């Protein structure tokens, strides 16, 4: 049982919840679907009406589309009326079933009843597809000549739709459109004028070409409207047909643009409209507004333009927000043509920024950005910054970027620019995008020293005053402190009389530290702060040691950061900034970046998303860190060598040692050569950065003696201090000992006969035998001499003999030059070398040595290692 539309609306309105409403609707659509299936003709148009209602509420109604087509085909007017309404509302242009309507439309266009024809024309106007337009255009055209103005006006608008959909048909119908302008009905006139504007829009060439000769007619029409007395039919608040006037003016604007002759014909009437229109009501203002637009667009006289701008100025002072809106809108369009005239209203426009209405503010803002020039940039930018404080946060980013554009273009001097940017960051540091940050730092870095000092002082103050939320400000401030921190240590008085006191290094550091401690501190800020600390070690290098020490502590703190990036950087920086580290070069001040070049770069998108130069610093620190590690490996090569020595696996060692050595050196070299030399103009970091590998003990480097002690001792930590303490103590007596023996190195040989000197073979491999002869002046003395004698029993000479000895920490050792580097073959002569040894722990520990021998035999390089421990008791 079908309920009435009215009852459906009632029941839907009485629903208290959305789900209740849904159930009512779904019940009803089920009913309607059944009715459709059962072809219940008598309910059809009522069902479609219900569907329209559901459609408006947003429910699915596609199943009713065909019903509309059936209703259109019905002979009865009420059914047709609902059918066409359903067609216009339920179907869109894309619906496939729409083409089925074409035939019904064609039939109805030829109907004798003008209302049915009107319905069909209206449907074509609202819904026609390109196909339908092509099929029905001739029918529509026929109705343009209809006897009834009701049909003519609807046909004109249906034609507008057809021509919009099929622009190629414009030429066929353009003449017919021209004839419409002779019509006496206002309805037809207004539709005809709109149709002509529409044609000018879709086919400007054809449209303007055909209609420009009508300008006198349009002018006459407008004049008639103006001079016409009161006509109740078309009067709106004392103005006769303002709608037609507006559309006439709009068409004249299109036709007069760039056409001297047409513009000339319009001058008088435009002046008349501009001066005589009553502005008490909205209708009059609408006409005046259109008239101003027309004057500013066509090639009108100078006097008229002044008049138009004055009207806009008057609009601007109007209390009605709509009028002010259109004034701002139009001034924005004419500002490029007549800047001086608009500049006169600058104060009023700036006042509009304080309006509570966002539409007005947006328009005023647009206009102000267009008004900025070299003369007023300071005043207007101050206003922009004021507005930035109060505006909605979603617009802040946009305003920041546009203000940056203004600063780029019109800055009177560096100080002002830096000042403005810092204020901008202070206000909207959390909203502005990376471009603003990077530009700010670039501008500060590229300005004069005085301005730099001013900027960094100002930034520190801003940072101190900030509550930690303006991320952009903090990033720029921290970067600048890192870069120009030394400037903070001197007081600064700027040209405009602002003076800043000198800051203590520790205060500067604690300011930055304070920022990183805040809860709102982001990782981006922490990264900059870390870099800042590292850089400050160089900037504050001349201050007392506590400052640098504090900075090191701060950097080291980040080594425990849960953020991987921070952790890595902290490790790298901490190596750079150790005493004598390579930090000085790599953390030196950035070279000045040309803002224009940087701008281009960022346009190309080649700059990192971070944008800020600190990003570049961070990048450059990667090779820096790598360099340090590489340098470490350089030394580490030797170290590894020795490690292998101490490893006590002589067999494997010779093979392993060279390879590690080589690869380590290769790495070091490649890092050095490629990255370091490129990035840093400063001298290459010295390998003393090596602590990475074994921190304190490596100081000695090449000697290796101390180190080996560690190796042998097995527990380096407790041993090291022990070893170091006695060593210096033992040293002083040593030189005399050495002196004593040095003049007579052959003495032992002379005493060779005495067999008191115990001799043993320390090494014998291949054809090489090394015998150790130990000599001692006094058995109780800790010092002794070991004479190593090399014998070659092979058939080839051994050349380039290199004999190295390593001893544990408790032994000190001095090697004298060997008697030769070539060991002749077949025992044809011996080479000997004296090693003076002092065993500081004689009695408790035996003398022992690690040997490393290298030589070339028959073109082959030989390297050997061995341990000599066969020293007699008492040594």
């Amino acid at each position, binding site marked *: 049982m079908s309920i*009435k*539309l*009215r009852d459906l*609306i009632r029941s839907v309105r009485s629903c208290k919840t959305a789900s209740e409403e849904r159930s009512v609707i779904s019940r009803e659509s089920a009913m309607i679907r059944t009715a459709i299936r059962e072809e219940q003709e*008598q309910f059809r*148009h*009522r069902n479609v009406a219900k569907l*329209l209602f559901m459609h*408006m*509420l947003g429910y699915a109604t596609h199943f009713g589309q065909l019903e509309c087509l059936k209703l259109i085909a019905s002979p*009865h*007017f*009420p059914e047709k*009326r609902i059918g066409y*309404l359903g067609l*216009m*509302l339920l179907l*869109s242009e*894309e619906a496939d079933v729409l083409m089925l309507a074409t035939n019904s439309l064609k039939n109805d266009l030829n109907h004798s*009843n003008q*209302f049915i024809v*009107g319905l069909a024309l*209206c449907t074509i*106007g*609202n819904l026609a597809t390109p196909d339908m337009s092509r099929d029905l255009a001739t029918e529509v055209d026929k109705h343009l000549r209809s006897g009834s103005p009701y049909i003519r*006006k609807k046909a004109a*608008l*249906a034609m507008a739709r057809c021509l919009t959909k099929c622009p190629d048909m414009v030429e066929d119908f353009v003449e017919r459109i021209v004839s419409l302008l002779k019509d006496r009905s*206002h*309805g037809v006139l*207004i*539709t005809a004028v*709109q*149709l002509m*504007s529409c044609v000018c829009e879709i086919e400007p060439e054809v449209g303007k070409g055909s209609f420009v000769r009508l300008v006198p007619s349009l002018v006459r029409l407008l004049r008639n409207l103006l001079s016409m007395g009161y006509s*109740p*039919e*078309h009067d*709106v608040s004392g103005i006769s*047909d303002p*709608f037609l006037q*507006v559309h006439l003016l*709009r068409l004249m604007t299109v036709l007069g643009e760039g056409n001297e002759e047409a513009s000339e014909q319009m001058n008088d009437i435009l002046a008349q409209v501009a001066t005589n229109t009553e502005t008490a009501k*909205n209708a009059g*203002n*609408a006409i005046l*507004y*259109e008239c101003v*637009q027309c004057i500013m667009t066509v090639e009108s006289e100078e006097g008229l333009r002044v008049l138009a701008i004055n009207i806009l100025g008057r609009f601007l002072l109007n209390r*009605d*927000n*709509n*009028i*002010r*809106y*259109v004034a701002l809108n139009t001034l924005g369009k004419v500002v490029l043509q007549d800047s001086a005239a608009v500049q006169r209203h600058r104060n009023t426009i700036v006042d509009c920024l304080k309006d*509570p*209405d*966002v*539409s007005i503010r947006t328009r005023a803002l647009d206009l102000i950005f267009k008004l900025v020039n070299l003369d007023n940039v300071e005043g207007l930018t101050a206003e922009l910054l004021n507005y930035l404080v109060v505006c909605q946060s979603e617009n802040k980013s946009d305003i920041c970027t546009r203000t940056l554009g203004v600063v780029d273009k019109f800055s009177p001097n560096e100080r002002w620019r830096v000042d403005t940017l810092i204020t901008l960051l202070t206000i909207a540091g959390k909203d502005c995008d990376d471009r603003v940050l990077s530009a700010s730092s670039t501008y500060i870095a590229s300005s004069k020293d005085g301005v730099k000092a001013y900027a960094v002082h100002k930034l520190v103050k801003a940072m101190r005053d900030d509550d930690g939320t303006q991320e952009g400000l903090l990033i720029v401030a921290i970067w600048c402190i890192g870069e120009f921190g030394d400037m903070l240590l001197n007081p600064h008085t700027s040209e405009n009389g602002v003076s800043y006191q000198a800051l203590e290094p520790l205060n500067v550091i604690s300011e930055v530290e304070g920022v990183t401690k805040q809860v709102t501190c982001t990782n981006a800020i922490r990264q900059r702060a870390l870099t800042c600390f590292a850089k400050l070690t160089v900037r504050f290098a001349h201050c007392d040691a506590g400052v640098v020490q504090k900075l090191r502590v701060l950097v080291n703190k980040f080594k425990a950061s849960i953020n991987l990036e921070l952790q890595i950087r902290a490790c790298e920086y901490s190596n750079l900034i150790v005493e004598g580290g390579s930090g000085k070069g790599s953390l030196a001040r950035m070279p000045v970046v040309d803002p224009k070049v940087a701008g281009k770069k960022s346009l190309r998108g080649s700059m990192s998303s971070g944008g800020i130069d600190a990003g570049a610093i961070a990048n450059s620190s990667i090779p820096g860190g790598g360099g340090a590690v590489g340098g470490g490996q350089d030394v580490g090569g030797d170290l590894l060598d020795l490690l292998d020595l101490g490893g006590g696996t002589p067999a494997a060692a010779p093979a392993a040692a060279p390879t590690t050595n080589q690869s380590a050196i290769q790495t070091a070299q490649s890092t050095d050569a490629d990255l370091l030399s490129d990035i840093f103009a400063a001298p290459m970091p010295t390998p003393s950065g090596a602590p990475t590998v074994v921190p304190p003990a490596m100081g000695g480097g090449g000697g290796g003696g101390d180190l080996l002690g560690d190796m042998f001792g097995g527990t380096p930590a407790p041993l090291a201090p022990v070893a170091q303490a006695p060593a210096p103590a033992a040293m002083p007596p040593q030189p005399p000992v050495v002196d004593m023996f040095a003049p007579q190195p052959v003495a032992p040989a002379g005493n060779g006969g005495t067999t008191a000197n115990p001799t043993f073979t320390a090494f014998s491999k291949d054809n090489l035998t090394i015998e150790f002869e130990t000599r001692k002046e006094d058995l109780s003395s800790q010092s002794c001499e070991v004479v190593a004698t090399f014998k070659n029993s092979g058939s080839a000479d051994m050349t380039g003999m290199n004999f190295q000895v390593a001893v544990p920490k408790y032994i000190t050792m001095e090697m004298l030059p060997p008697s030769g580097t070539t060991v002749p073959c077949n025992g044809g002569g011996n080479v000997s070398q004296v090693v003076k040894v002092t065993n500081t722990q004689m009695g408790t520990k035996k003398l022992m040595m690690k040997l490393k021998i290298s030589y070339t035999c028959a073109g082959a390089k030989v390297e050997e290692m061995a341990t000599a421990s066969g020293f007699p008791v008492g040594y």
Partner: protein
Amino acid sequence: MPYNYLILMSKQGVVRLASYFKTYTDSDKNRITRFIQNDVLCRTPKMCNVIEKNGQKVVYRRYASLYFIAGVQPDQNELAVLEEIHLFVEILDRYFGNVCELDIIFNFHRAYAILYEVFVAGYVCETSKNEAIKRIADMDRLVEEATQHMDDSSNEENGLSYTMQMQLGRRPTRKINKSMSV
């Protein structure tokens, strides 16, 4: 300069009448509706009647609890649009006789008929209130005549009368006569 759409929305954000003159997809239509609900309905009376957002521009006017919202092109004459909206409202007012939201809810099909009498294809079609009212009254009379001739569907017991169906709410003839006399 055709309109893109014309929507009547209640203060609560319910669409009462909607006509799209440009081809929009359903999601576009939803976006437009949401935009109106979020950005237009909350504006105070003192603010101007134009709002732009994300390339859309609407001119709206509030009459009691109903907002009349026209989606317009960026360079359209906003003041003229307001005047055209007012013309439509005045015609509605004359037709229904002191129109209220309920009239439009229960007689939305009539309201649509008036809408399409004033705006076709997004252009203004008729600027004379009298002319528009006269044509709509003529059509209503045509409907009434047709329903009287169509005996098959004027079965009162089933509630099928065309008169009943077409004259939901108040009787338009009475209304029209009243308003014409005013």
